[in-house]
């Protein structure tokens, strides 16, 4: 069999980064719209609009411009806000889209940032509940098609 994709882990992404910055500074960089606009998307991306209501249920409204000049409207809802350690959000309109979770942990040399994106499902009850997304378990995957394959059109 040839597969570069573990079926079990195919629906989640986990990344870790260590920063010298304090958790408080990282939290500010992740939740202050003026600062988020400076880094979101990476090199070559611009963020002409970023508005964040950083509280559970609050909306993150964002316009991102890709290097080719295309603008994309993004609208997320915060689902966990525990400064300066836990921030989680999901597409505001599509509750079957990925759950994004950032955890910040103080380490001796700085701060460990752990990022996780997980596609929810009925088989992930514990994980979803940990994310604070119990309600999405009622939702099917019907609307996932709107996200998959066309991440640039997420609204």
């Amino acid at each position, binding site marked *: 069999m040839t597969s570069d994709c573990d079926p*079990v882990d195919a629906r989640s992404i986990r990344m870790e980064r*260590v920063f010298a910055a304090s958790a408080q500074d990282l939290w500010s*960089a992740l939740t202050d719209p003026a600062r988020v606009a400076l880094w979101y998307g990476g090199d070559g991306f611009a963020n002409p609009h970023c508005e964040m209501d950083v509280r559970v249920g609050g909306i993150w409204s964002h316009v991102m411009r890709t290097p080719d000049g295309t603008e994309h409207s993004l609208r997320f809802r915060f689902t966990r806000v525990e400064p300066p350690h836990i921030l989680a959000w999901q597409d505001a309109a599509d509750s079957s889209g990925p759950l994004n979770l950032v955890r910040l942990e103080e380490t001796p040399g700085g701060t460990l940032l752990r990022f996780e994106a997980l596609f929810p499902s009925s088989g992930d009850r514990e994980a979803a509940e940990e994310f604070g997304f119990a309600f999405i378990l009622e939702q099917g995957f019907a609307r996932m098609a709107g996200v998959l394959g066309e991440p640039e059109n997420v609204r």
Partner: protein
Amino acid sequence: MAARDQVSQVFHALSDPTRRHILERLADGPLPAGQLARAYRMSPAAVSKHLKVLEDAGLIRQERHSQWRPRWLDAAPLEPAAAWFDAYRRFWDRSFDSLAAHLGETAAWQPPAVPDTTGSDDSEMPEEGDRQ
């Protein structure tokens, strides 16, 4: 469109632990349905339903000519799903690079670079912030 639908179907197929377990077992080689079903505390009909979902997603196929008609894993449909994840991962990888730069850190998560002893004179390099 078709590709997007298939990615959606693949994620749906992968959303169930029993179905993921079936795929894991088939990754070791083809098995007939009866043998697959014996591992689960559910009716053969329930297992059949799971197999149908996996078949619809194109993740398993059935050998029609062999007498024991084994199911085997076809990993090809996982590729568009993996590609989507790869794009998402790269998006955040780039974003975290920029976040580090924004914080005044250059590649803090990477092991220290090996000093360049060939002596390239890159005068465009910005000053390090080495104020006392």
